[in-house]
Structure formats: structure tokens, C-alpha cells
């Protein structure tokens, strides 16, 4: 049985996302981190945004070979990166037929790429340095 269950929502208004041809790009406007979800990972985020029960979704996605561990790991990363949080205020819905069809059609590993290279730009740190890679000021390290 999944350690995760119930309804989850995006963690705050700072979490923004756009979907392109089945792949989500997620930006955390508070941290400056951004993320790329593979098509199979994006199916899970689709279900979260629809308010589906996470345990139910993980059960469906776990029917594929290796799916259970991979999707548990993915959901853990969504939590660890503070992209989603539990929503106790609203009941979860059971995964509907449309989502189930999409979930059974996924292929490829459910992965999330994490990009932290611009995170310093969002910090209004009192001291800044110039960084050629970033192109603009970034927070000075070692202070």
C-alpha cells in the first residue's frame, strides 16, 4: 500500500507550470528552481492537478513493470522539492476513466529534472556578485 494518499495541490501560487505536448515545465518563482517532467511523469502531475487520490493513481501507475517504485520515487521528489503539498481541506476524487486511459498509455521512465542554476538570481541578498554564467548579478557566496 502506498505511503502517500489523499489529495495534493501545488504548494503555493509561486509554483507555476506549463504543459507542452505532454511534458510539464514547472517553475518555482520563489526559489528560482525549475523542473522538466517526462511525459510519463507528467501524467501523475495531471492527476494531482485534477484532484485525484494519489494512492489510487500510484496503484494504477504501478501496474507497469517497475512502475510502483519509480512513481513512488517521483512523487517523493515532487514533495521534497516542495512542488506539491497535501490538501486536507478537500476530498480527493478517484482517478477517472480519462486519466486511467492516459496512465495506461504512458511509456518511458517517469523522471523529473531539477535545474538550480538560476536560483541565486531570485534572492535579494544584500551582497551580490557578478557571474558570467548567469549573465546578471547573483548572490555572493561565502558570506
Amino acid at each position, binding site marked *: 500500500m502506498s505511503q502517500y494518499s489523499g489529495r495534493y495541490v501545488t504548494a503555493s501560487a509561486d509554483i507555476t507550470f506549463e504543459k*507542452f*505536448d505532454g511534458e510539464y515545465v514547472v517553475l518555482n518563482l*520563489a526559489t528560482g528552481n*525549475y523542473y522538466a517532467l517526462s511525459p510519463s511523469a507528467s501524467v501523475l502531475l495531471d492527476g494531482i492537478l485534477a484532484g485525484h487520490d494519489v494512492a489510487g493513481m500510484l496503484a494504477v501507475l504501478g501496474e507497469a513493470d517497475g512502475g510502483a517504485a519509480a512513481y513512488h520515487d517521483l512523487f517523493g521528489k515532487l514533495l521534497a522539492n516542495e512542488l506539491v503539498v497535501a490538501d486536507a481541506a478537500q476530498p480527493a476524487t478517484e482517478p477517472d476513466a480519462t486519466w486511467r486511459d492516459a496512465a495506461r498509455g504512458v511509456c518511458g521512465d517517469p523522471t523529473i529534472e531539477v535545474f538550480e542554476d*538560476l536560483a541565486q*538570481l531570485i*534572492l535579494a541578498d544584500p551582497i551580490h556578485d557578478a557571474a558570467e554564467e548567469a*549573465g546578471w*548579478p547573483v548572490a555572493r557566496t561565502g558570506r
Partner: protein
Amino acid sequence: MQSPASVGAAAVTLETLPAFAAGAIAAAASVIHQGIPLETLPLAGLDLSVHGADAAYAVASRVRLAVRRTGGHATSDAAVLLVSAGQYGFPAPPVLTGTGSHMRAFEAALRDTQLRAEYGFDHRLWNIYDTKKRIGVQWTTAPGALPPWESGAPLRAFLHWFHADAGRRLVHAGTLGLAGRGALLVGKGGSGKSGTVVAGLCHGLESVGDDYVLVDASGGRLRAFPVFETLKQDAAGLRRLGISDAIGMGAGPNWQDKYEFTCRELGKAGLATDLDVRAILVPRLAGEAHATRIEPVSRARAMLALAPSGLFQMPGERDSGVAVFADIVRALPCYSLDLGCDPAEVSGCIAQFLDALP
């Protein structure tokens, strides 16, 4: 009328930021309305009047901003006062305190107002803009006491706020075009945007900029316009492109250890007035042995290359920016651009690609 001295609190907090910003704008307006113009800059989509006593900054801005040759209108669209401590009754700019370390909190303090602002801790610099009055103030401790990146991209915060309010966007991208049709080159610093743009200019292609350009998606077309005249390359890039002698390196590199120059120093007429954008290219340095390749890439990859640096390098307007950048990506075919090492070969490959665009 606001007295400039009355906005001179010693410190500003997030709680006092809206009132402070409104007071600074009122004080700037009172100075501007006295009629102290330095320059009226006819820019793409914006006739900007610059006021104040810092003539050197105004001259530098005219050189670095992409000023249209046709001249501006009699009245400006927006006005910015350049002011330093002791000028026009303005005291020393106050210190921002108690922000924690988060820019989003700073932006949130102004979210429900018509005001935009950024604060530079190192230089105690305030840039403040009123989107309704279209008046801004750049308030420094002394003339020229500005961050090192300001010289290559003067007044960028004000341009960003003005255009975002008008539904346009400063986009972190290089551009190359042929016969008026072009592509955005997107990617973070070091991905090869600037070098590719300069190579293209040296081999017959057009551009409206190598770092930040103005994109207007109104009217069913996606067009790009120049914002800054500045092109940049490090010493190795200049040598690789064979232009070290042409641009001269006597002035020394900028804060990024890059040399700033313009099209005219390359013997070109200047940047194009605009480009009809038909594609997105995501450049990548492929290595010595590779010929340049252009292949389809996913829109998600293009979004990753386009949006984050543009969102996080500019002050505010981040929530609206995500949707704007997503619309740009959805509107255009997206390609990876694996760069070879021969500037002529790279430019030839891109020229063929641009020529074949519908």
C-alpha cells in the same frame, strides 16, 4: 506637490515600501514637470524622455540603447528622472531593511499597486516606476554609482516594466534573420547565443540583438525589435571570429570580462529595425569536430531555455512572464542548434535554415 526631501527616510521596509515608492514618484514628477530634459530617446515601441543632470549617463544610454533613426514624437510615452543624492532636493537614497532575503516578498509588497521597484543593495540604488503615470526614477548615491551591468543595458528595468505593462516583453534571446525573417536564439549565459549572433552578422545575416530583444506578439505576428545596440564577446571569441582588430580592445572588458561593441564597429549599417520571428533555436556548443546541425527539439526544451533566465534576471512581472513565454514557445517551431566551431560554417547553416522557413 511632493517635496523630494520628504521621501528621504533613512530606511525603507516592506511595510513602508508602497508609500515610499509613491512619494519618490511624486517627487520625481515634480522635477520632471519643471522641464529638465536631457534626452528624448525614440526606441522601439517607446519614446522615452530622460531627465536629470547626469549628462554622461544620458550620452552613454543613447549609445547603448537601440535608438531609431527616424526620431521620436513630440511627446514621450514615459519619462525617467536620473537623480543622485543632493540633486533637485533629493537626499541620499534610503537603505532597504528587514526584507529577509527574498525578492518575491519585495515584489508582493507592491503587487496591488501601480508601482514597480527594484533595489540594489551594493549601490543603494532605487529604480522605481509608476505604470499609470509612466514616470520612473533612478535614484543613486552619486552620478554613475551604478552596477557594472548597467552600462551595457541602461534603463533596462524601466524598459521591462513599460513593455510588460503594454503586453510586450523583453526576452533574453539572441536573434538572427535573413530578409526580415528570423529566429530567436535562446539559452542561458554561455550557451553560444552572442557568439552565434556576431558570427552571423559577420557573414551577412541580420539581427536585432544578441542578449535582450523586445518581442511583440500582437496582430497575429511575432516580431522582435532591438532594445540595446550592445554586442558582447570575450577575447577568445573575438579572436575566433577574427574581429579583434575591427572593434578595438583598448577600452578593456566589462564586468563579465567581455568586450562591448556595436554593429557599426563591425562595419555594418546597424541592427535591423525588426524581424518577423518564425522559429526558436536552442544553441549548444557541439565541439571541435562537429558540423553545425539543426534538428527539431521539444517545446518543453525550448521553454526551459527561454523562460527561466528571462524571468529571474528581470525585476518583477514573473507571473505574467510565464504565460507570455509559453505563448511564444507554442507559436513557433523549435529546433536545437548544435554549433560547429567554424563561424562561417555556422552562419551558412543558419542562413540555409532561415531561407527555408515558411
